[in-house]
């Protein structure tokens, strides 16, 4: 007997709502959402990777870190918002498939970890203006950059793998 309060039941209910059915049965909605998701991924991953590579000392060494952040953070944020919105609509339309997909769960955990990494970095590192202009940064800043690259690449790969999970 299924527990009426289970997340799985909620997902079953969710993907039977009018909006979810509309997305699934539309000729173009699904493709449009995937396209928005992947186009904003390019902007997001690109701007994040540039900052990470700067932290690792592998590029843009003459640019102060704060300059890079100021220049690209609006783009990173906007593209993330687009990815989250299109992603949420995709989950809505295929809630059960997402809930039962191992890759999807891994992706969500990795996004969470990447978020924690961002919070820790912005709380501890960014306030330290002492190394802002330095070509070679302290180990913890390098580590934050390395971790970010690793986690976001993992998010991307896990996302790609969802399509192969069923």
């Amino acid at each position, binding site marked *: 007997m299924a527990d009426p309060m289970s997340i799985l039941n909620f997902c079953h209910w969710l993907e039977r709502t009018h909006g979810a059915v509309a997305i699934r049965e539309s000729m173009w909605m699904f*493709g449009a959402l*995937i*396209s928005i998701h*992947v*186009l904003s*991924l*390019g*902007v*997001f*991953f*690109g*701007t*994040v*990777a*540039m900052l990470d*590579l700067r932290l690792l000392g592998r*590029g*843009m*060494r*003459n*640019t102060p870190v704060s*300059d890079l952040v*100021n*220049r*690209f953070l609006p*783009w990173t944020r906007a593209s993330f918002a687009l990815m989250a919105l299109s992603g949420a609509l995709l989950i809505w339309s295929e809630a059960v498939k997402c809930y039962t997909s191992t890759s999807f769960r891994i992706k969500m955990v990795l996004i969470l970890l990447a978020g924690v990494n961002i919070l820790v970095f912005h709380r501890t590192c960014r306030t330290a203006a002492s190394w802002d202009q330095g070509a070679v940064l302290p180990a913890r800043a390098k580590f934050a950059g390395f971790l970010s690259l690793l986690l976001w*690449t993992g998010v*991307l*790969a896990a996302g*790609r*793998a969802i*399509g*192969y999970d069923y």
Partner: protein
Amino acid sequence: MSSLPLLEWFRDTPLAQTIRNSSWLLPAIESAHLVGYGLLIGTILAVDLRLLGLGVRRQTASQIAGELTPWTAGGLVLAIITGVLLLSYDPLKFYANHAFPYKVALLVTAVAFHYTAHRKVTLSNASGIKLVRNRLAAGVSLALWLGVALAGLAISLNPF
């Protein structure tokens, strides 16, 4: 002369067979393709935004491009190598795909534009005098690369 025998040869190479027989190689190569695409788009966006007069003014487009060139090229090479590997998975499918020739044509145009006219404008270091030329180069560049990405999406979303 038909290119079909060549595609069949490509399909039957050991490399292509290895990819087809693996359960994880195809998604892994697709992921690497997206990483290359992200690096390419991000670094080109950085230069084009500067050309458009948006973002930080402290550095010229030429300086930004100078620092990002290896990563743009790296992203491009990664995307092309993984793209060829993805082709090998089923060359005949791409042969029949209507979006595929558009992607190749747009990619060739975008790369040619990037390393000729775009590069010339970027390296000229003119930040105020020839604004129209800067904006035109950035606009054409962004439109071309967006076209490449959209054609790629059309290939993956449309099996025909």
